């Protein structure tokens, strides 16, 4: 793919995303990762739920389905099982995947369903105007946590690992090169691959946490992120790390358990 608009729908540009929204950066990185691989654009399906992040497939010039809030992975499961020749790629957000869609997330990981999932974790519900999500840091402000978030966040990547995914990585939008690398790896992986991207939502999250300017959000992402290798060296418990508001970045798992599709195939061949 030579041109960005070979992949994206120029007729729908510019996007609805706010200035400085990380969703756009993820789209860039995805373009790079995808275009470097030899994937037939007519044999890919993009799936999403509902949210700002979930709007990406609507901008991609390929078969794409914007499902109901939280259901992307379940739809993708049916889709990839019914036509295993298609590459199925999901774009989702922390709310879509981690809140309402949490069950499909862990079950798709467990089944090692054949799909690549990119989750834009902006620590907030962007689309609906800035309510706390399941990854909003402890004590952070949002329209539904006016006194600070009293709950503790999920570590989505660790959940995917525990549930059984084949490939799991997390980066921030500041790590564009590493992100592209992980995206590429995820795209060629069999089974369930998952890349989480810590991403700014200046409008929904930043504004209420003294980071209304995208630049401040970038600064924050830089300060908060810790390389996985480091956290391992210091032997930090992932749950604690996450609670303290750190974002561990790196690759979390890279394994080759058989995928759901391959298991069903072997069953039908009486293996």
């Amino acid at each position: 793919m030579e041109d960005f608009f070979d992949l994206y729908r120029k007729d729908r540009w510019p996007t609805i995303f706010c200035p400085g929204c990380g969703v756009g950066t993820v789209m860039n990185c995805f373009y790079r990762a995808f275009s470097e691989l030899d994937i037939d654009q007519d044999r890919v399906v993009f799936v999403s739920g509902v949210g700002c992040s979930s709007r990406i497939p609507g901008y991609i010039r390929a078969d794409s389905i914007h499902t109901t809030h939280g259901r992307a992975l379940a739809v993708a499961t049916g889709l990839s099982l019914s036509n295993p020749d298609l590459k199925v790629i999901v774009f989702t957000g922390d709310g879509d995947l981690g809140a309402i869609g949490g069950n499909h997330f862990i079950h798709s990981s467990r089944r090692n369903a054949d799909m690549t999932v990119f989750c834009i974790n902006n620590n907030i519900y962007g689309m609906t105007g800035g309510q706390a999500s399941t990854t909003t840091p402890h004590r952070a402000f949002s329209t539904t946590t006016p006194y600070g978030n009293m709950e503790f966040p999920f570590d989505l990547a660790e959940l995917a690992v525990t549930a059984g995914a084949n490939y799991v990585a997390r980066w921030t939008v500041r790590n564009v090169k590493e992100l592209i690398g992980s995206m590429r790896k995820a795209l060629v992986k069999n089974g369930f691959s998952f890349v989480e991207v810590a991403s700014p939502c200046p409008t929904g999250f930043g504004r209420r946490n003294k980071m209304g300017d995208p630049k401040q959000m970038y600064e924050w992402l830089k300060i908060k992120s810790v390389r996985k290798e480091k956290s391992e060296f210091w032997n930090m418990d992932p749950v604690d790390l996450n609670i303290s508001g750190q974002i561990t970045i790196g690759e979390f798992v890279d394994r080759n358990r058989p995928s759901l599709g391959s298991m069903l195939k072997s069953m039908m061949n009486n293996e």
Partner: protein
Amino acid sequence: MTISVRFAGMGGQGIIFSGIALARGVSLYEKRGGKDLYAIQTQSYGPEARGGSSKCDVKISESENFYPFVEIPDYLVLMSQPAYERFIDVTNKDTVVVLDEDAVESRPDIEYYDIAATKKAEEIGKRIVANVVMLGAFVEISGIVSKKSIQKALCDVAPKGTESLNKKAFELGTALGKDAINAD
């Protein structure tokens, strides 16, 4: 009898804020012939309200229950060129247009008033209160509601610490409004 007012401009210009201040002022502080007045404020939601253009309507009535949506506004307050383009045709010959001189390039062929709101706001160092300047000008030009009511409402809705700034901007606006009428 109802009066309808439409404020339109860009996201971030405080269009909604103006509408709320007006409707609140009318609802809580304004009387007509000793009787309460009623006002409803409505606005556009959705992705388009996020960036780009912004719209806010206020309808004022003497009776409690009335159709609160603005079809053709009696007053149209415009603060950006795209807003002008989008709404200028949703008027009739009686519609009075109040526009921010610097933010809107075009001019309509119905009655209109130029207000140097952005410039004035910049003069007091806060471009952000151009909307309140416009509100003041509108109140003066339309004469449909007392300045006092709207100022009270402004005080209610202004973020803490910005009350006097808003008050000042409003007064500058009414002055500009008076000038505009007289210039006519």
